[in-house]
């Protein structure tokens, strides 16, 4: 135990105590030196070929620039990676972990942090982190209301974005939760949402809840501090009214966002939603969705959040993992990620505060009809406290499973 502490002490000390600027730079140089030649195993969800292609590019770049070998460990569920770290922890493996970097946010982060499965704080030490201007953009240091405290580094943004087939809906899709119910009644079987406990499906519940409660302040405190039954009553009333008009009469739900998109592609539903604002446009380019696909955001805004990368507590190659996290925050990597032809994931950098030359990297063509207008993404609702997600999921399942 003490031996292990001694070994990580220099790195930890350097991270915990920000010395003056020149020294910080020197310390970062040391990290870069240490990182050279290391191999980083990055566990990241791999359900999207565009994301995988982007990671392939990152792999090339960090090899060229920092002599780091990056391995994308493709997983279908981030929970599996959390599970892995946990198995290592329970087996007493405290310094030879198999995971160096995890792509995560929300519940997974909350669970790992609570169980001390994360290394940090490290985010503030990354030179490019300053470009996110956290003092002006609290969302890059807040994950579902929980302060990240430097235990994860922001990577990209997501916002609940609806999309529909204009050939069927015309130019007038439902723009609020109440309109959605009316539309579903008029068009039975043409809308659905991913089944709980899917991430996207749970987000739909939260979005509906925020729209339906009179006072949403309670949602930003732990759920234990309010009367759950009382606060969520309007939601269940709404869902009870909505379900009979859903796809398969609400007796079945798609498993996740991608399956919902496939239902759109097959023409089984006419209205759907996603967390990646560029996904509909990308799917059109991939021949999946018809060219008449259009995207929009509900009036009054939709839920948005930031996704992060974190380093498990037992990663043996933390230096290289930090360098990769820093590279992911570089304007070059962020601009490429935001490019609709690459991935289309919005940047976490505060573009308005960057110098003109860097800002130019983020200019994009706007003529794609399936793509959301950038202005639409300014209406972002913050995520409720993570405990609400769990409580809503349990309540939904108790109500609708096995009936």
């Amino acid at each position, binding site marked *: 135990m003490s031996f292990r502490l001694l070994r990580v002490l220099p790195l930890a000390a350097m991270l915990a105590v920000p010395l003056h600027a020149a020294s910080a730079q020197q310390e970062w140089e040391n990290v870069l030196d240490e990182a050279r030649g290391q191999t980083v195993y990055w*566990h990241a*969800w*791999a*359900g*999207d*070929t565009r994301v*995988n*292609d982007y990671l392939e590019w990152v792999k090339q770049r960090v090899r060229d620039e920092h002599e780091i070998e990056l*391995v994308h460990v*493709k*997983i*279908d*569920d*981030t*929970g*599996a*990676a*959390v*599970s*892995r770290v*946990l*198995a*290592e922890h*329970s*087996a007493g*493996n405290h310094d*030879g972990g*198999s*995971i160096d970097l995890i792509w995560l946010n*929300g*519940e*997974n982060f909350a669970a790992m942090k609570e*169980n001390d499965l994360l290394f940090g704080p490290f985010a503030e030490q990354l030179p490019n982190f300053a470009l996110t201007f956290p003092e002006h953009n609290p969302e890059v240091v807040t994950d579902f209301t929980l302060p990240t405290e430097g235990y994860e580094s922001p990577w990209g943004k997501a916002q609940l974005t609806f999309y529909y087939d204009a050939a069927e809906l015309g130019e007038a899709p439902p723009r609020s939760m109440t309109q959605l119910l009316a539309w579903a009644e008029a068009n*039975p*079987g043409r809308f659905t949402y991913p*089944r709980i*406990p899917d991430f996207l499906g749970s987000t739909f519940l939260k979005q509906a809840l925020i729209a339906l409660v009179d006072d949403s302040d309670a949602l930003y405190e732990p759920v234990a501090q309010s009367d759950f039954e009382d606060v969520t009553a309007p939601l269940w009333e709404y869902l009870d009214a909505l379900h009979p008009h859903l796809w*398969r009469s609400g*007796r*079945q*739900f798609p498993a*996740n*966002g*991608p*399956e919902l*998109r*496939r239902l759109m*592609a*097959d*023409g*089984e539903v006419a209205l759907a939603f996603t967390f990646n604002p560029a996904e509909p446009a990308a799917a059109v380019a*991939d*021949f*999946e969705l*018809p060219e008449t696909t259009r995207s929009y955001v509900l009036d009054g805004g939709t839920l948005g959040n930031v996704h992060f990368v974190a380093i498990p507590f037992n990663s043996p190659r933390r230096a290289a993992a930090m360098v990769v996290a820093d590279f992911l925050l570089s304007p070059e990597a962020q601009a490429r990620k935001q490019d609709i032809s690459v991935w289309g994931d919005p940047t976490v950098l505060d573009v308005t505060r960057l110098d003109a030359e860097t800002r130019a990297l983020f200019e994009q063509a706007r003529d794609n009809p399936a793509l959301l207008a950038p202005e639409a993404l300014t209406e972002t609702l913050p995520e409720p406290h993570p405990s609400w997600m*769990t409580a809503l999921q349990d309540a939904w*399942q108790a*109500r609708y*499973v*096995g009936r």
Partner: protein
Amino acid sequence: MLRLAPWLIVILLVGPILAGLTMAVLPAFGYLPALGGHAFSLEPWRLLLAQPGLTRSVGVSFASGLITTAISLAVVLLFLAGVSGSRLDRWIRRLVAPLLSIPHAAAAFGLAFLIAPSGLLSRLVSPGLTGWERPPDVLIVQDPWGLSLMAGLIIKEIPFLLLMCLAALPQLDPERRVAMARSLGYRPTTAWLKVVTPSLYPLIRLPVFAVIAYATSVVDVALILGPTLPPTLAVSILVWFNDPDLSRRFMASAGAVLQLGVTAAALIAWWCLERLVARLGRHWLARGGRGSGDSPLRLAGKGLIGLATFTAFAGIAGLALYSIAGFWRFPDALPQGLTAAHWLRALPALAGPAATTALIAIGATLIALALTLAALENEQRTGRQPAQGRLLSALTLLYLPLIVPQIAFLFGLVVVMESLGTRPTHALVIFGHLLFVLPYVFLSLAESYRRFDPRWSQLAVSLGASRNGAFWRVRLPLLLAPLLTAAAVGLAVSIGQYLPTLLLGAGRVPTVTTEAVSLAAGGNRRVIGVWAMVQASLPLVGFVIAVGLPRLLWRNRRDMRGAP
């Protein structure tokens, strides 16, 4: 040396499973120090029993185990009873191997695309016959009763049971039995069912049990075709194990133990059914009916097996088409355009996983072959006869990895491996695959090996060859065809493994199957099509070699070329 082989096999198979089960049982009763569980309690069980829809999950798992097995077995027996050596029969027998080589997940995706309301069948007849401009809003795939799940499993279990029956049949000499019965006036199909089935069943009982166990606890097929609200028990367990809320691990472990109980209950229920059928069957046999409904039975056998085979291949064909499809929306019967883009995009990422898959599959298969040959040769030399068909024999242990649900012991096994300090490597994954490859290789090879005419070896020894010499220079070459078939089965089993690869490899050992499943999470049918093709074609290569090589090597030795 040889004498150690059976023991080695037993230790290799039983050790990891027992260790893994222990690490599942402890958390199920609240003990997992890493998560703060230091004392034993029943809390995990209380939580588990409070899960909404648990009864239904258990019910579907239990029922799909019994129904899938009953139907698959009935179809296989009816088909075999009606076999007349026609061209169609030969074709179906030849298709067994490729059918067996299609991974479960790929077959399930194929079936789902075939029968969905917006699927291939519906597209072919719409809007022409049905008038559907939009897919009808009916629940077919993932129905709450698990019917589509059972259909998907039946398609895959029929070839497995057929192969097992074909392997066991020769020692029963069915032709002479049927000839005897026919001379007494029995119609051919009835004759087969009455005189061959009662002797055949004990020989295939363990494979039947493996099918029951598999169908009650399958994960990948149930994810694609199974019910969702609630899902089957095995799928629920996987979800709980992967839940970000780490305290759910305790409940998941309790679920894993429950899964073990459900599988055991299904096996016991089947055993009771066996008794019942045996009792009823005795009357049927003794009554002496000569077979009034003979041709309907024969036709049913052929029709059903034909339907299952056709469905499997049509599903795969649909996926193949999708892998090159441009825009293709309901109700178009064909894509609007064809494109190689999906393949071109996947190709650069294919090489690595394909090589890893081959390395692991070949490694596991070679070890399995070596152990199997050593054990079988030992059996021959010591002259011990295998206790076939009896449940409490050493052979039962061989079935342990096939009968204990993967999901019940794999998570525990990971913790065990971690505490031993083993790091995820290719070797560890090969070891994990060996658990499942070894039983199949043994089962495929054992019968041919034991039936091998002992006079060949005796002759060789009498001519002065040593026993080892006779083994290497006479027995092995003569058994080349069955050896290669066993190897092909082993390769196919290894290539299809998902959970063991993922868990023991910590995701760092990417195979085509793990890649295919993680990409399938993206739901893009074109990508799924590409990877399903790759996943299905790799084992096929093994089977092509298994059939082709003996023909090439022994082109001047007709009887050594193996079965047609």
